[in-house]
């Protein structure tokens, strides 16, 4: 079911209500209703060297932040606001963790240096630096900075001189699997799927994606190892993905 069939007015009303009450149950409902958007956007950022599950976690956390920070009085649709937030978080995640392993060493080294330089310059300038400013600070040509930044976002074929580029059509990036997520009504599919999970799995999902706890925090809270939390989360997400797939 396309997202635009979702009763937008009802969603707006719920956000208006949440803005006043900050009701936890309503918050859960709003988060759950938009987790499909997190999956869709994570899919767009897949194949960049970061596990898909991690991207989904980052995107889901961004949905939680979006629900908490959304101001329905500003006249912007929640999906627009959330998309901006999720993309921003995914970009930051890839910048920090999504290292382009296939980039040439000189680009890797430059990118690592740029990471520090970007932070320092951003603080000094009070804004994001320009490429010219970065190049000057790093003592590198602007072209090299541009290529390093390209590689830093972990694009699948991040550098022009990637040795093992694949014969892949562009459209295959957005092929069948993407359509699988695009045609799903988030609430009607996800909520029942979550309900089928065990109480502990549901609790872990809530702690991770609604309350925003880290896996280690969850592990400490429920008395198991972080690795076990990771496995339970992965298994739960897999079952949710299967629920998506069954709706095709």
């Amino acid at each position, binding site marked *: 079911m396309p997202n635009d069939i979702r009763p937008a007015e009802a969603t707006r009303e719920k956000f208006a209500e949440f803005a006043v009450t900050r009701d936890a149950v309503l918050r859960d409902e709003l988060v759950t209703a938009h987790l499909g958007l997190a999956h869709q956007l994570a899919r767009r950022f897949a194949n960049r060297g970061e596990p898909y599950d991690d991207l989904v976690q980052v995107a889901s956390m961004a949905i939680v932040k979006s629900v908490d920070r959304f101001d329905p009085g500003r006249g912007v649709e929640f999906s627009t606001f959330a998309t901006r937030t999720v993309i921003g978080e995914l970009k930051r995640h890839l910048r920090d963790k999504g290292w382009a392993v296939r980039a040439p060493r000189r680009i890797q080294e430059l990118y690592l240096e740029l990471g520090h330089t970007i932070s320092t310059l951003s603080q000094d300038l009070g804004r994001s630096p*320009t490429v010219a400013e970065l190049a000057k600070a790093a003592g590198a040509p*602007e072209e090299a900075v541009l290529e390093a930044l390209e590689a830093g976002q972990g694009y699948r074929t991040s550098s022009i001189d990637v040795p093992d580029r694949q014969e892949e059509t562009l*459209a295959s990036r957005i092929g069948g699997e993407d359509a699988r997520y*695009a*045609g799903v009504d988030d609430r009607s599919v996800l909520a029942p799927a979550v309900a089928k999970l065990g109480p502990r799995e549901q609790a872990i999902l809530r702690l991770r994606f609604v309350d925003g706890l880290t896996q280690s925090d969850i592990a400490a809270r429920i008395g198991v190892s972080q690795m076990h939390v990771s496995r339970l989360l992965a298994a739960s997400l897999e079952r949710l993905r299967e629920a998506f797939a069954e709706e095709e």
Partner: protein
Amino acid sequence: MTEMPATEMPATRFPKEIAPWDVIELTIPVRTDLVVLARLTAATLASRVGFDVEEIEDLRLAVEELCLSLVRNGDDGRLRLRYTREGDDGIAIACTFEAAPGRGLRELPVDDLSIRILDALVDEHGRSSEGGHKRAWLRKRRSRTVA
């Protein structure tokens, strides 16, 4: 997925200021490993216009999305990109998909997610057709004021 009404790219805001060196044209086969050229061209031009790093990253994503929005699995052909520097703070990019000879142009419903992503990343965007080819365009302006 919905059909989106065609939206012609409005005339540039600085028609008299566009010089030949303000326009870059690039044609690439529809292949993932070559979209890097579309992104790097956009990033290079954006850098010349003075976009900051965040804005350049947004533009990279938007260019890729622009290309993705025109093709789907099994399509074969070329993407023709035209980058135009607009004034001293903006860039317009138009991307046209030209199907390979003998490959008919298939109707392509617009992906809602593509629209949302472009909404989030650029100032303006739209779609139209040009000479029977599918075309998508975007505009993005620098937010920072250069002293």
